């Protein structure tokens, strides 16, 4: 339960005062998440990890970090997938702890963070069943934060409408799904469209929620979600080249809570090749930077990595503010990036691809 004083204040609609009472309800968790943040691996950790010869070395190295003995009960040899699972588990435990100790509005906010995992899980399951995989096999691949009770019965649905009416209608994703019902059957392209449509609806809803919370949260989350929305718009555009997706359909998938909205999105919708997308990005200094260094040649970073770098930068910045929920979102994103980094390094070690091992994205 929120503190009565906080309720009284919020009942009075004193949005401007919320920093004063922030710590009454959320101070502990904010302190906690900032403590967790200090456990994020830094450059020296990565430098040490990169020197590792085997996965065993990596295990030893990770034992010296905040992860501690999270692999100590695993018999060697350790598979990379196992590390991935354990890393995920580590984060899930932290998140669940925070969720369990949160009160509204923070609990609502944290729930919203899980929705993106739910979308991923749904798409994973649909794609899996499309390829005739067993549900039990797919089950282990789902992200634990995004699991919900109806999730596994998803394979009964043959059309998006059925998916909606039978499975998703009661879940928080129900409202997001309404726009996708028109699609006729589930094939690769439609799944992709559903994913992006869901994300669009989700991002816009999340954005709206954060704005309604006001204060620092609105400011910090506004920036983060705008970036996320714009990134999706760029990626959708680039990925749609050479597919059957029409420009109109494409435009419908762009989230409208970003900085590109509305002019940039209109221009993006008309793009036909990568150069034109780049031209659109030139108009926005922060995206111009992302595009300028990106490329597929050796020695250049991929556009995806450049976006990740920018994301990390933004998320690190959100810790500079206080009394807002953005730190929780940022922590999750940074931790995910860290997992990706560790997995990348582990894979490089396991597959003896040492040349590429430095392509991780350091956080601090």
């Amino acid at each position: 339960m929120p503190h009565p004083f906080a309720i009284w204040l919020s009942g009075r609609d004193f949005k401007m005062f919320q920093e004063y009472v922030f710590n009454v309800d959320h101070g502990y968790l904010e302190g906690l998440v900032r403590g967790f943040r200090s456990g994020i691996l830094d450059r020296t950790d990565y430098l040490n990890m990169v020197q590792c010869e085997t996965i065993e070395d990596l295990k030893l190295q990770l034992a010296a970090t905040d992860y501690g003995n999270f692999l100590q009960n695993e018999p060697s040899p350790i598979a990379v997938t196992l590390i991935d699972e354990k890393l995920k588990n580590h984060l899930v435990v932290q998140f669940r702890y925070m969720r369990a100790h949160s009160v509204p509005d923070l609990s609502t906010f944290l729930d919203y963070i899980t929705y993106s995992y739910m979308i991923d899980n749904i798409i994973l399951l649909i794609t899996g069943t499309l390829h005739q995989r067993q549900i039990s096999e797919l089950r282990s691949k789902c992200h634990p934060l995004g699991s919900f009770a109806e999730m596994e019965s998803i394979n009964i649905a043959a059309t998006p409408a059925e998916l909606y009416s039978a499975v998703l209608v009661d879940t928080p994703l129900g409202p997001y799904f309404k726009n996708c019902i028109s699609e006729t059957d589930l094939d690769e392209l439609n799944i992709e469209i559903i994913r992006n449509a869901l994300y669009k609806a989700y991002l816009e809803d999340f954005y709206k929620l954060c704005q309604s919370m006001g204060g620092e949260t609105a400011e910090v989350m506004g920036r983060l979600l705008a970036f996320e929305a714009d990134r999706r718009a760029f990626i959708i555009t680039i990925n749609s080249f050479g597919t059957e997706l029409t420009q109109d359909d494409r435009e419908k998938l762009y989230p409208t809570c970003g900085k590109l909205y509305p002019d940039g999105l209109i221009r993006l919708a008309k793009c036909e090749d990568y150069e034109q997308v780049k031209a659109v990005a030139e108009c926005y200094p922060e995206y111009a930077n992302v595009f300028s260094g990106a490329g597929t040649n050796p020695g250049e970073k991929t556009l995806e990595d450049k976006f990740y770098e920018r994301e990390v930068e933004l998320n690190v910045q959100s810790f500079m503010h206080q009394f807002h929920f953005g730190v929780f979102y940022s922590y999750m994103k940074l931790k995910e990036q860290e997992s990706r980094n560790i997995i990348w390094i582990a894979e490089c070690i396991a597959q003896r691809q040492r040349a590429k091992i430095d392509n991780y994205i350091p956080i601090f």
Partner: protein
Amino acid sequence: MGSLFRSEEMILAQLFLQSDSAYSCVRELGELGKVQFRDLNSDVSAFQRKFVNEVRRCDEMDRKLRFLFNELEKVGIETRKAGNITAPDPQELIDLESKFEVLEAEVKEINTNKETLKRNLLDLIELQFILLQTQSFFQEAEQYSTLITGQEPGGIERGVISDTEEKGLLEEGRARSDMGLTSQTNFMFVAGVIAQERLATFERVLWRACRGNVFMRQAPIIDPLEDPTTGAMVFKVVFVLFFQGDALRTRVRKICEGFRATLYQCPETQAERQEMSIAVTNRIADLRAVLRTTEDHSVTQLEEIAQEIDVWQQKVTKVKAIYHTMNMFNLDMAQHCLVAECWCPVEDLEEIQTALVRGTEESGSTVPSILNRMHTPDDPPTYFKTNKFTKGFQNIVDAYGIATYQEVNPALYTVITFPFLFAVMFGDAGHGLIMALFALTMVIFEKRMQGSGGEMFGTFINGRYIILLMGIFSIYTGMIYNDVFSKSLNIFGSNWNASYTNTTPDYVFPSDCSCPDVCVLHLEESETTILPTQAQLFQDPYPFGLDPIWQVAENKLLFTNSYKMKMSIVLGIIHMLFGVILGFFNHIHFKRYINIVAEFIPQILFLLCIFGWLVILIISKWIIFYEDLNTAPSLLITLINMFLKFGMSPSVTCDDPGTDDCDFDDNQYSVFSPTAGAADAQKFFQIFLVIIAVACIPWMLLVKPIYLYVQYKKNKKLGYSRQIDTGSDLEPNDAETEYIVHHEDDEQPKHKSKGDEELGGQIQEEEHFEFSEIFVHQAIHTIEYCLGTISNTASYLRLWALSLAHAELSEVLWNMVLKIGFSGVSTKLFTSPVVFIDGIAIFALFAFWAVLTIGILLIMEGLSAFLHGLRLHWVEFQNKFYDGAGYKFAPFSFEAILSGKEDE
């Protein structure tokens, strides 16, 4: 030299260990536990060290052992504690590894077997429930179908589904029950079991996905069933789904799969069901028997493991620690040996040497291991050899800061001063006795109690000797105060002579007399206050402590307050003086002779001139008898005037003669004698003292920085002409010599490590010598000391305050609680006393009193007195001499590692 007075003398030694005997040497050293290794590879990351593979093998074994421990814990088998097991030879490691491998595999196999059996059993049990429940469902259905002939169809569902449900099901139900009449084969059903928490969503999804065309019956299984994989107990629900058509069947099956419901084949006719039920019951009985034998087998195996596992654990831990240590060594390729550096106490060098010899012999190596003394500018670690008695006191000091290497250790004196100061605040013989007895039981049963009783009680057990001394000292101070549960003991008989007649009315003082130094006794009955003559006062005092007659005196509080306050000041000043004197021993030991002249002497003069004089005044005033009370001087005013009026004002100056207070405003009498001459003499002496004290301040402030500056200048000149013989015109032992010794690096390097690090460090780095810095440093020290003497003296008044609070609280408790019981409760209620009621009342009141005495007076007051005592030691006492900038000697010791006390 007492080992507790200064920390052990340490040296840095270099060990050359042959690579084949290194292992056994380190093992011997680990058993000995007197050597602290230095990490020579701190720049090498963990996985690049030499013995990382061995460490990893140990980790793997550790993991297996942990697995086995977990299994033991699950079954609840106690492990047998083994004695001290020596670490095995490296060859034995392979045996251990294979043994663990086999054991782990075996236990895992049994576990999988057990799990399969349990799963089968669970399936059967669930099937049994399904058969049982479906039986009733079908029976109901049949009863209804016979009943509803000619009646409104759909009655079956009425009992289960409310009327507000959608129409589809009703219609379906109607259709089905119609069909049920004609042919039962037309609709199908599946039966299964689902976890209770999934049921609600399961039902909802079924409803939505099949558009209400599935009819569900359910019944909970009352007892929770065990999940074979996790071992958790889960509540489950039996359900039967009725539907029509194959399309629905696949769909329903998919949903069931999605919700992880287990489906079972259930025969359709009743005869078959009954047959199956019997078969299932039999199989369950069989399975249970098999499961029991498997479990017995697993328990016997685990019991065998439990006998040995502690031995293994010790071995693995030790081997791991050995390799961990060896990872800190340097490898000398040319000579095939490992080079280690370690701190070791000089006193134990013999033992270390023999351990090395033993290690070399064990390994069968012919080349001996060599221990070389090294010289280093690094500070050695601080190592005190403590026993179980002194350990607690050493911990008190360590909690403030680990002593700098070889400085005077306050723990030695804390052994006595701490319990004593505690007792001054906790002065009650009764409470002290309880405390001492409590501690004594802990001391007597220490072996049995060690490591038991949780964190809270563990703290008490660790401090049992401190508590014992605190208790004993409290009995002593309690006897002095003559307080036993706030009552006095009349052991020797009061020496107060009450027959003395009061003939001089001038001496009658009001009971709120503010000059309590003179024994004014106000007897309760006579209502007169009697002042004794000098002769009476000194002829026959009470032999020990306070005369018990004070217990009935009205001005008892005034007297004890004055007595305790003055005593606290006296004790405090003695304590601080002692601290300053200990500083002298530090200066001598570290050869900081300048500090004696520039710090110690002015400090002690300053303290003595102001507060030493006060102590003399206090004691004199206790001894001297004042015929005329008006001539008894106020010490406080004397001390204040000593500074403000530069001595003592010889005449009364009273601004407002109307008030009585002005008698005490100014003190015209000497403490020693009421004559005017004495007053004058005291005045001049005090002026003299003030001058000395004030002169001490610039002395402390200036002498040392100026001296250092002059030395530095001299030194610099010397530095430009290096060729000139170094030691000729310098004092042999000051900081400068060290500087030169350091640079030439040839003679007396050992001397350097003992030398004044502070000065040495400042002068070693010439460029960093800054006069202003040193001056500011010295200024801070001076101000801190001068203000400190005053505020610290005031701080010692807490002795009085706490003692007062303790005495008052216990008196209040006595008067308000137990005394009511003694005075007879029944007399207040009835005209005559009723023994029965009084007995009960006294019983209840005593219990109340005892609980409060233990809870408030012993535990809470005890804790607060403990904390204040701690503070007096840490701040008031130790800041006079204690640096506390050292680091603790952490030897490589198996004992510490195994007991988990190693500080990492």
